[in-house]
């Protein structure tokens, strides 16, 4: 894997601004974890409300099946990203 660019400074020795930055990154991890299921919920409710209600692409089932199929692992990826952020995986640049 790529080597880290910055020096690995233990948390106790890091500057206050760096400690604050790390705390923000970790806290925001919860936001990324919450956003992922919200996206999937909106996609599924969008599909339910629009399929069969007209003749546009948004009213056909196939696009929704494809989009929800491809977006589910992407949303899961966003949750994993959030989890990594909480665990401090991105604390160092």
């Amino acid at each position, binding site marked *: 894997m790529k080597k880290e660019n910055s020096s690995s400074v233990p948390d106790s020795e890091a500057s206050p601004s760096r400690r604050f*930055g790390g705390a923000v990154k970790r806290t925001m991890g919860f936001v990324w974890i919450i956003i992922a299921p919200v996206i999937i919920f909106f996609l599924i409710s969008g599909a339910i409300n*629009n399929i069969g209600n007209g003749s546009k*692409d948004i009213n056909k089932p196939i*696009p929704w099946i494809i989009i929800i199929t491809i977006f589910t692992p*992407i949303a899961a990826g966003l949750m994993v990203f959030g989890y*990594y952020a909480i665990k401090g*995986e991105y604390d160092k640049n």
Partner: protein
Amino acid sequence: MAEISTKGIGKVIFSSSLGTLIEWYDFYIFGMLAKTISAQFFPEGNDTAALLSTLAIFAAGFLVRPFGALFFGRLGDMIGRKYTFLLTLVLMGGSTFLIGLVPGYKSIGIAAPLLVLMLRLIQGLALGGEYGGAATYVAEHAPPHRRGYFTAWIQTTATLGLFVALGVIMFVKNNMTDASFNAEWGGWRYPFLMSILLVGVSIYIRLRMNESPVFAKLKAENKTSSNPLKESFGRKENFKIVLLALFGAVMGQGVIWYTGQFYAQSFLENTVKIEFIQNREILLWAIGLATPFFLFFGWLSDKIGRKWIMLTGMLLGIIFYRPIFGALLKSANAKEWRKDTNLLSNVLLKHSTIKIDSLLQNGYPLQIIHQKNLFQFKDGIRFTEVIADTSSLSKDASFSTSVRNDTKPIYSDIILSPQLKIKFIFLIWIMIIFVTMVYGPVAAFLVELFPTKIRYTSMSLPYHIGNGVFGGLVPFIATLLSATFTGDPLVGLWYPIGVAALCFIIGALYLSNKKNEDVSD
């Protein structure tokens, strides 16, 4: 770090960029000729053909491109960049040429849409494999202090491919009648057939190139990956970087790219109602004038880092999309022109035609009167107004005295005055400048994130999810938002703005502006 010479870098860039440009050209002409292709292969009223048409549009962009990134990325990390992106070029060129040869639905029935769908899926697969190979190949030839500038040449290809596709289609269309162009074996096939020549030249040039020196060294030392997919996505240390690349950079880049180049064009055509040829002219000028900025921002990223250039492009999109699209809509408002007494005093020509349709409604005769007015003004503005009125007949067949104005006038085929056209070119140009900011440095940025032995795989997947899925969804989500919130004609922009904003926050928080100089590890 391995010493990299810039000797022959021009040939490397030319051979890689030309092939990638042709792949984009091949991919775009299908989308641009979608109406004609649809009429030839996916006729209305046939449910199977309609299903295949939807699959051709959605599956090729969303499902197959990321799959192509995985398939060819793995291949490129195992056997090498040169042969892999040569293969993608052959697949793309071959399938484009064959689309030009498939007989229409009238001749061979359901086999026609099936063949076209299959070829379109191969196109999507090939596109998924091409970019990562070309970007990696150039980056692995480039010296660290000029990597952004050299890979920016690859970044121009997606835009120049659009430029060439637009130019070729306009050239063919302008040299024949609409009937000749749209016939079963008509002019629409020429851009597809022409692809074989372009691809032939590009294959010849690419065959004469050597393997990337960085990868060749790795191969000679027997250090290539035996399972790039597992190493890329199965190991936390690399997977977390893949996720960061996707959510902190490429996702936002994808929506900015799509909105500036494609959504703008369809907005001008379908919402502002600019006439077909003038719409393409505006886009061609804007693209032509903005393209050098890909190189500029690639160069600048070598000096000041990649992160903030890309994020600034996103931020500008977030701030200015609604004002710019709003200005486009307001500046060409035929409804307001129609009310403007000063403008109406300058009418050069007003030509009206009336068509009457008679029908029965609940047993009573009814007439629908379609009035089509063509306005042309001294300053060059032109537009068409269509009004449909209904008049009822009484039982004894004498026309009722009242005529109902039951539809609002519909305006279309707007031709702008030269001054307005320049304003539109400028506004589209600004949006493509945002594209150049996010897109110019991104190849170097992605290449520097991953180690050589899994670089092709690791960078291809986030790139194609960002561009193909997040970017490609712009028109679909825009239609969805417009159908849900009918009062705001710009409501569709909240999708790219929202995605770009999310990406901006993630990128600003988690990305580093430091460049990784050594890509030979």
